[in-house]
């Protein structure tokens, strides 16, 4: 008996003629994700991808936890792959599913027979397997409507696969299938969630972080590394660009009215980000903004920020409440990192009474006191990058 992972892709089945391209991309992503967990072979047949460990050195549990986070997968199962012989199927089902069967009361059996040469029909396989398991586990009863566990036997070309209830996959589209975009990440709760959500829609991520030493510390940047490492479990490798931002922030502080500080700062961030994004072939920016959350995220403030953007800015959290964002950040395990108490670029010099309804005219007038082009170019030139990958 050999253990494999059976993967069902979700939306991909809808993609018609492009389906093959999407599937190949998904397999490529999975292959990359599992690389450091051992050698796995992937085969595609009838909208199911089978991931099979090549040798006994593969870390199967680790592989499963990684597959759980790969976008483009609707559901998957850990399955036993056994010889296509009814006797073997029964004994393997007993052995392989015992840990699960001992924790439940009711079950049912489903069978799929794509190898029509197999002597038993699907209903016969169900009946045989159900009866056998009932004899071996007397505490069980069959419940076809609402079972605790669905035992599935799939008879395919090379093997019969036995597994329990399917595990929900991460959903979404394969990373990279929608292109590449740049997430602006500060270290708070929102940006990792925004990154996760857009990666889920198939975007490959690069990340841009603004560092203002000594106002922000090395710990603050480390925190961003930890956040992205966590996000990369879903999105795959992320290249982080760290922009030196001290001079820009000091220059805004020295030359612009206090109430407009944050809006000018965000416009500067957008200008810098856009150049980096273009250089790295990213087609959009992503931010974690939500309307009305803070003064710089009012509609007029967002309009001022967007006025300097030529590429689309994706804001997946725009209509979400904080508790909804927090719920996702807990789900993807970024919340506990996000709440570490380090000053970040957004909290340096926060004005006491920020303007909530800035106009573009006013902001542009305030910016006249800044050497915008020089500051942007120097920030871009001073940018360093590192690759971040959880695996």
């Amino acid at each position, binding site marked *: 008996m050999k253990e494999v992972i059976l993967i069902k892709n979700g939306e991909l089945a809808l993609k018609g003629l492009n389906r093959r391209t999407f599937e190949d991309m998904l397999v490529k992503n999975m292959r990359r994700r599992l690389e450091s967990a051992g050698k796995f072979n992937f085969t595609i047949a009838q909208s199911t991808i089978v991931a099979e460990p090549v040798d006994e050195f593969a870390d199967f549990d680790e592989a499963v936890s990684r597959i759980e986070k790969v976008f483009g997968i609707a559901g998957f199962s850990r399955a036993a792959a056994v010889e296509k012989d009814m006797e073997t199927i029964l004994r393997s089902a007993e052995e392989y599913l015992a840990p699960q069967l001992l924790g439940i009361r009711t079950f049912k059996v489903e069978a799929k027979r794509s190898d029509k040469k197999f002597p038993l029909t699907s209903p016969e396989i169900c009946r045989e397997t159900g009866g056998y398991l009932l004899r071996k586990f007397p505490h069980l009863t069959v419940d076809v409507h609402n079972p605790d566990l669905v035992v599935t036997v799939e008879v395919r070309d090379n093997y019969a696969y036995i597994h329990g209830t399917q595990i929900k996959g991460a959903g979404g589209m394969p990373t990279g299938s929608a292109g590449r975009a740049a997430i602006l990440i500060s270290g708070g709760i929102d940006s990792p969630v925004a990154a996760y959500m857009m990666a889920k829609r198939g975007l490959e991520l690069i990340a841009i972080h603004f560092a203002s*030493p*000594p106002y922000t510390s090395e710990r603050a940047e480390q925190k961003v590394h930890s956040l992205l490492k966590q996000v990369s479990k879903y999105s795959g490798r992320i290249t982080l660009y760290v922009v030196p931002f001290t001079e820009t922030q*000091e220059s805004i*502080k*020295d030359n612009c009215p206090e109430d407009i500080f944050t809006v000018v700062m965000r416009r500067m961030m957008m200008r810098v980000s856009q150049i980096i994004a273009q250089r790295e072939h990213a087609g959009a920016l992503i931010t974690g903004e939500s309307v009305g959350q803070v003064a710089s995220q009012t509609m007029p403030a967002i309009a001022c920020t967007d006025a300097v953007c030529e590429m689309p800015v994706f804001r997946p959290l725009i209509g979400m409440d904080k508790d909804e964002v927090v719920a996702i950040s807990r789900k993807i395990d970024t919340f506990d990192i996000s709440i570490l*108490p*380090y*000053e970040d670029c957004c909290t340096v010099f926060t004005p*006491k009474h920020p303007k909530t309804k800035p106009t573009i005219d006013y902001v542009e007038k305030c910016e006249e006191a800044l050497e915008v082009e020089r500051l942007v170019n120097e920030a871009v030139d001073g940018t360093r990058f590192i690759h971040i990958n959880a695996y």
Partner: protein
Amino acid sequence: MEAYFDNSATTAPCCEAVKAVSDAMTNCWGNPSSLHRSGNAAKELLDSSRESIAKCLSVSPEEIFFTSGGTESNNLAVMGAAYQMRRMGRRIVSTAVEHSSIDETLDKLAEEGFEVIKLKVDNYGRINERELYSAVNSNTILITMMLVNNEVGTIMPVQAAKRAAMAARSPALIHCDAVQAFGKMPVKPVSLGVDLMTVSSHKIHGPKGVGALYIRKGVKIKPRTFGGEQEKKIRPGTEAMPAIAGFAAAARALPDPQRELEHIRMLRDYMVEKLTELDEIVINSPPDGLPYVTNISVLGIKSEPMLNFLSERGICVSSGSACSKGKKSHVLMQMGLDRRRLDSPLRISFSRYTTIQEVDALIQGIAEGKKVIRAVK
């Protein structure tokens, strides 16, 4: 230049301690409870270590109980005393500026129905002795007070606790958290009139993960852990021999605290003089505090950028207690400091290894930081 000014958070282990830890792990790794040669050797090391700590406190070895450190000793002392004495009364008197390992334990006891009084402090972190006397009544079962405040260095009137208890005819046990005082000034439980005292290893150049609780002979407290005969069932569990041996070695290596104080006071006075020459710097520590700890505020410059700026130059200071990073200091708030001072504290803490060159580097660093870092209103 590397300059370390965060000795209230932790200290560099001295070579004596490093050697003792390594020796214990290499040559003396037995279980002190085992009845064979290996166990006997470990038992001997345990006994001699206990003697070393006892000697530093001028108490007898049977009164020293090893724990995992200051926090555990404080928890054990406060909870153990409160539960032991609960039939005799329910009031516990303490101060508003204790370390969180006392403060949060007291909150827990308050939830359980004990009446906890935390005495207010003045703007130098000092309690009013008269208020102590009136807070302690015959119903009081425990008075717990730190000897030296960990954030500002204020020396508390610990010896007044016993007197207040006697005056009120209260049976109260007296506990003293001496973590920041031990090794830095003469600390004698007997002359302070305390029944329980907490000390920690890593604040005196010993290893982390070990501390001790002094329990005066004849005083009983309830244990918090169960499951063995070690430490007379007060703190069961196989003794952390390497750490204990290191702690003892560090204690033996302590110079005469009184003489050392002269040197540290000179350094502190020099630093304060230089700092006050810079504008916008206020000293939050009392002039008569323990000179090892100096808390200052650099007005208008938040702690974090200054700390980062100094760190970049190899100078380590802290903004407050390492046990509550990121939050505003509850000690400074209790002292009633205004917002500008609360936003910008730096804690500079010395050790016997601190040099005048390091102090010069620090002052120069702060002066440069003040020029470079943009102030906030």
